[in-house]
């Protein structure tokens, strides 16, 4: 079934509001979210045939409410049957009617749902899947395709995630102010991983892949509209735009990875670069600097340069140093080594890598071998570079990375 893009957009945009309205009315998040999913599927079947109703949101709320009423009725009779067999119904299992308040709080609903779906008790893959369904309005089948797992597996993962939220007892509402910033971090992290999942695998062997990166950008845009003064939200949106801008140039005709320094920069998306750059330049001076803003700044420096040689590497090295101060992550140090090598020569970069050899978090990681190989190659030590490229190729678990590293070996060997 192919849906008219305008209708699809309408449905997807309406999703968080409809879920919010139903949860507020009936109280049960898990069942409400299922009911909305059914309403969305009904709309996708009916609207192209019968036309879009005058009040699409009202239509969806009505259909989802009807499903909820059916659900409550069958649950009640099931419990009555069970009660007859097993004695009185425990108080906690009795159905309580949700408070029926109909406030127009589309934005709040989106945020509340995002906070809920990024609940710390959930694994990150579950949080991403639940976010895609409850906030993004994707069907279970679409999400399953995006993750390359069978639909029944994804359905199970989503229903377990909802059960986890239910047993954690979080109410459907905005977290308190002190809690909010930690919860916002979790939301941004989920959106960031969603983006990476789509971006990293865009060159994999997958034939069909729902575009997770675009969905992550769409949702982050929504958060940015709602919280324009949160610098890290702006930073994350800018980072996604500036990274995604290079997508077309990042893979060759056979799906092989093309590294930054060999990309055809005329294929970069100028509009996305402009938007991302203007967001990050407006945000950075405001002072509350975080890691998404800094990563966006680095991406912007790359995106503005006409070539690797004309890239402002001293500035990139400086931003990596700021990043390293924010978080103790050896991957940052690894990237900084590349920047330092571009400024002071490969041996300066290699010296930094030697210091990372003893870091247990990187032990045996292919990236350390890959970066070392790259710097050795720049230093003219081809034999040693080949060894490191080979080691990296045997360690990576990404087909596209492995192929890229094997090509490097082949190129240096001839």
């Amino acid at each position, binding site marked *: 079934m192919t849906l008219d893009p305008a209708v699809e957009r309408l449905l997807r945009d309406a999703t968080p509001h409809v879920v919010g309205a139903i949860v507020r009315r009936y109280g049960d998040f898990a069942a409400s979210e299922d009911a909305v999913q059914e309403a969305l599927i009904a709309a996708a079947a009916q609207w192209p045939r019968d036309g879009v109703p005058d009040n699409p949101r009202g239509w969806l709320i009505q259909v989802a409410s009807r499903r909820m009423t059916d659900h409550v009725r069958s649950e009640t009779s099931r419990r009555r049957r069970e009660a007859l067999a097993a004695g009185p119904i425990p108080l906690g299992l009795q159905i309580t009617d949700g408070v029926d308040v109909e406030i127009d709080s589309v934005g709040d609903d989106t945020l509340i749902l995002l906070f809920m779906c990024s609940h710390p008790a959930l694994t990150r893959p579950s949080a991403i899947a639940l976010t895609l369904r409850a906030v993004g309005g994707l069907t279970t089948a679409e999400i399953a395709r995006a993750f390359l797992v069978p639909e029944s597996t994804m359905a199970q993962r989503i229903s377990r995630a909802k059960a986890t939220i239910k047993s954690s007892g979080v109410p459907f509402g905005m977290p308190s102010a002190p809690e909010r910033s930690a919860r916002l971090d979790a939301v941004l992290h989920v959106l960031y991983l969603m983006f990476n999942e789509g971006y990293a695998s865009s060159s994999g062997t997958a*034939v069909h892949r729902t575009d997770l990166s675009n969905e992550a950008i769409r949702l982050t845009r929504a958060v940015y509209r709602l919280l324009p003064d949160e610098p890290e939200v702006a930073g994350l949106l800018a980072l996604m735009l500036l990274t995604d801008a290079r997508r077309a140039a990042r893979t060759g005709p056979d799906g092989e990875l093309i590294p930054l320094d060999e990309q055809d920069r005329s294929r970069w998306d100028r509009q996305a670069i402009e938007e991302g750059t203007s967001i990050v330049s407006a945000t950075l001076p405001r002072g509350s600097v975080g890691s998404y803003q800094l990563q966006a700044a680095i991406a912007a420096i790359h995106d503005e340069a006409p070539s690797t040689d004309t890239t402002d590497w001293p500035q990139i090295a400086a931003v990596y140093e700021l990043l390293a101060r924010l978080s103790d992550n050896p991957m940052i140090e690894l990237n900084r080594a590349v920047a330092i090598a571009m400024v002071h020569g490969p041996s300066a970069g290699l010296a930094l890598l030697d210091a990372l050899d003893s870091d247990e978090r990187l032990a045996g990681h292919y990236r350390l071998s890959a970066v070392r190989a790259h710097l050795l190659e720049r230093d003219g030590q081809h034999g040693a570079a080949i060894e490191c490229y080979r080691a990296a190729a*045997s*360690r990576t678990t990404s087909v596209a990375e492995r*192929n890229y590293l094997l090509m490097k070996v*082949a190129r240096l060997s001839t």
Partner: protein
Amino acid sequence: MKYMLMMHTPRAGFENAGIATWPMEDIKAHIGFMKRLATDLHAAGELVGAEGLASPEHARVVRAGKGGAPEVTDGPFAEAKEFLAGYWIVDVPTTARAYEIAARASAAPGKDGVPLNMPIEIREVMSPPPAD
């Protein structure tokens, strides 16, 4: 009928004479071949699933130890001459078709474009009991 097609690669080949020693054009041709195979099987509605497996040096054997706790060892395949490099699961009307697909996969191009003629093990996937 569903079949699992398992691609076995000689271990020695992987480590010192394998793909890591081929010229770039040959590697490209090999990758392109595998990609086309997956695309064609998908387009024909025959592909159920396919995965390439990471290098065997990460492989571990797990047995339940005391109290069911995992007991992890590196062996015994350190001496194995071949290892499973990847698999396809295809859904096809006949065994002959499964053989055909396996033969195509087996002939993936290697160094200088010479077909590798890798051994592809074929196993039928068990099916649910017939409907009453």
